[in-house]
């Protein structure tokens, strides 16, 4: 009886949802037909993606996604699943595209397509503004915080693999005493904000994120030059080669006609779309 009830509910939802689910290879058709491009964004990272008080979004990734949709002849619509849900792949047609400053790692490439790298973000160390450390090398043996299972943690652990064309080479300058990882790299900034050396001695994150935090009153200071440049790509679900090819074409055109550069200068003040 109970089982019947549950399966009944499930079946009901399934009927309602069956129109929403798409089989592989149909993303391109769906976008062309509905004239809507559904883009997943993790709105936790100004100036890439952040939510405004009215619920709409703004940022570099948002502008790039909007431009891609425009060139596909579609309206853009944003959804906000958790980052790990986006990177898990198998989107089941819930959304078509991620323009989320995602690093195309070999692991992720098993479940997602990376049709086009659209910019390179500099990764930099930061310390509390009262900190005595002056160079990146000073941080060896110290407590350093960053996001868990992200490229910055990989850099600290010295097993970072950047497998993309045009990415400049880098070297490991620091051997941390202790690596503390958080849900996002912004949490590390909150811990460093409490006081120099209280919970952390330093952190590593995307330079634009650190700059944005400082702009918003975080007592932090960028330490030295960026330590590596990370290529960031748009991502699509596996299985629709036509859609991925089209995305590569669109982003390539945006790079060539300078519109990517323009968006980058609007949000970062510099052109980050070239890997040097």
């Amino acid at each position: 009886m109970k089982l019947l009830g549950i399966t009944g509910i499930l079946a009901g939802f399934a009927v309602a949802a069956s129109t929403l689910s798409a089989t592989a290879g149909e993303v391109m058709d769906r976008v062309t037909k509905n004239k809507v491009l559904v883009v997943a964004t993790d709105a936790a990272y100004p100036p890439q993606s952040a939510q405004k008080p009215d619920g709409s979004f703004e940022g570099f990734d948002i502008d790039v996604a909007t431009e891609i949709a425009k060139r596909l002849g579609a309206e853009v619509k944003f959804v906000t699943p958790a980052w790990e849900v986006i990177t898990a792949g198998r989107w089941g047609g819930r959304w078509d595209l991620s323009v989320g400053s995602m690093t195309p790692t070999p692991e992720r490439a098993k479940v997602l397509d990376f049709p086009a790298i659209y910019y390179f973000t500099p990764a930099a160390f930061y310390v509390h503004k009262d900190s005595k450390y002056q160079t990146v090398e000073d941080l060896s043996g110290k407590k350093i915080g960053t996001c868990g299972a992200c490229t910055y943690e990989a850099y600290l652990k010295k097993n970072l693999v950047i497998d993309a064309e045009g990415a400049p080479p880098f070297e490991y300058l620091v051997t941390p005493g202790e690596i503390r990882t958080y849900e996002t790299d912004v949490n590390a900034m909150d811990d460093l904000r409490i006081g120099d050396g209280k919970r952390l001695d330093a952190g590593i994150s995307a330079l634009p994120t650190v700059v944005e935090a400082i702009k918003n009153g975080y007592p932090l200071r960028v330490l030295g030059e960026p330590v590596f440049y990370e290529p960031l790509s748009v991502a699509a679900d596996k299985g629709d080669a036509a859609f991925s090819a089209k995305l590569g074409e669109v982003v390539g055109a945006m790079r060539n006609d300078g519109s990517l550069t323009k968006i980058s200068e609007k949000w970062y003040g510099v052109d980050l779309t070239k890997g040097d």
Partner: protein
Amino acid sequence: MPRILGGFIEQPRTKWLLFFLAVLAAAFAFDFSGTGLSELIMPLTGLGPGEEANGTDRLLLAIMLAVLVTADVFLVLRLPFVVQIGVVWAQLLILFLAFFYSFDLSFPFIAARLPILIFTGAFTTVYVSLISIGIACVIAMTAALARLSNNGPAYGIATFYISFFRGTPLLLQVYLIYLGLPQLGVTLEAVPSGIIALSLCYGAYMAEIFRAGIQGVPTGQAEAGTALGLRPVQVMGKIVLPQAMKLIVPPTGNQFIAMLKDSSLVSVMGVWELMFLARTQGRSEFKHFEMLITAALIYWFISIVFELIQSRIEAYYGKGDRR
């Protein structure tokens, strides 16, 4: 000797002195220098702002605090009971708000985001929770009856279900339904997935509440019903359940309030409930505290409203006890 000491402690005046000393010791142990509280009292101790408090200043501060607290408790105890509760609530609330206020929050930032937090966030949280608790009640009742039945398969399925959904984290269940079901060809939207996960999880907990409620009705009641010639369904519906409700309602209200907050887990699927919006909005300008505290107060307010509703329902089912 112990009797003399006992008599000494029993003296009302001595009790107050001991209370005063205890507060004093606690206040002295905690270093208030540099906090908003000390700045409030500092002028009285003759210490300028920013100056380091020495031992005498700290003692002076502690004495003042202890006098205040003791006088406060002394006065409050002289009030009628109902007024006492009101005064205590008001004082704790003021302390609480002063604590938040001391974080130097940006109120324009909160004001700009209050509409979306309430009309989208809190609204989503409440409606997802209400639908889920409704479905959970149906599931729980079915599972409880199956658990109490002599039907082997029904008993087996019910215990398996209760065991699994109580024994695994809700977050994992949310992921299983949202990411796992599409592998079987069923792709659900975020809100239905969340409602299913919450209903199944809470249905399992509440099945045990319902079972306890039903078993809490003395068997003589059911026997009497049967003796009067009522059919088993009538015995359950007209005699056992109305009495069981009295036992079921308080813990169910408890579950609902817990669910209000657990519903924040559905945010991993991108549902814009209160916690999701509080986190996301806070990150837009790195003002996490503003949004987290606002969300906390909104959750609290909603919980209070539902606590009041629960006490009404309790009064309704408890009317059999009144004479």
